[in-house]
């Protein structure tokens, strides 16, 4: 089970890096929920696919790298790094494109039921990302 989860996650990341969002249909339940504080939850696979598509409009060359995968029963965790150039504007990035090259990391914890992901918690370095984009000044 745990090993299969890792295989699935590698496949999902590979396909998302090519912009193939439909791959998610095979691995996520329809009523899937993503928690990504401090932003509102994303409910339903359709909305989650739209979120990924919007991300790619804002950062068309977005590439996710898997830094580490840990699995325990039906719970999986991925530490990742995202890299890309902010040349577009979308609902996920509701500000004029900065043209900046950005790189940020995070952790996603997933919970699966009957072989499909039903819930994820995504903790990304949003503060660092907004600082790199120049939207929030660097502190301290």
């Amino acid at each position, binding site marked *: 089970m745990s090993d299969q989860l890792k295989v699935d996650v590698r496949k999902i990341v590979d396909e998302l890096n090519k912009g193939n969002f439909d791959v998610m249909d095979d691995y996520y339940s329809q009523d899937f929920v993503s928690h990504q504080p401090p932003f509102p939850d994303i409910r339903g696979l359709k909305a989650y696919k739209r979120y990924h598509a919007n991300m790619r409009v804002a950062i068309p060359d977005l590439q996710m790298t898997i830094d*580490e995968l840990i*699995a325990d029963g039906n719970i999986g965790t991925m530490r990742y790094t995202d890299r890309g150039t902010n040349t577009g504007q979308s609902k996920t990035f*509701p500000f004029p494109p900065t043209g900046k090259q950005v790189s940020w990391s995070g*952790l996603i*914890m997933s919970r699966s039921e009957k072989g499909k992901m039903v819930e994820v*918690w995504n*903790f990304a370095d949003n*503060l660092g990302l907004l600082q790199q984009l120049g939207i929030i000044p660097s502190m*301290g």
Partner: protein
Amino acid sequence: MTAEEIKSKFRRVWGEFNKGNLDPQDELYAADWVLHQPPTPDVQGLAVWKQTLVDWRTAYPDVQWTIEELIVEGDSVVMRYNWHGTNTGESTALPFPPTGKQIVVRGCGVNHIVGGKVVEAWVFMDMLGMMQQLGLIPAMG
């Protein structure tokens, strides 16, 4: 150490933290451990870590830590958590006049264990949400 033993150590040490007892941290974190917590600089070593905890409790004297999920694979432990507290003090952890705000902050970290102690951790805490709740950054989108 078995997975259950390491889990109960995490629960016990953070339970003691909630009572204001920081010394049990010595049992969980190695003397030369490193904490990566982007976008803030790395924390190097147990002494600096414990001072960070003291400063944190000064900023939030009623701080309480809750473990929401704990998973173990081999030498890796993932802890998803939240903490809540009222910002009534000022310290290097929060170099602003106290806001008086009560906040809840979530996070998740990967811990690497050697000889029963954490030697390295990657922690992602919702710092943006924390700053927003404190009113230091406006809420967005």
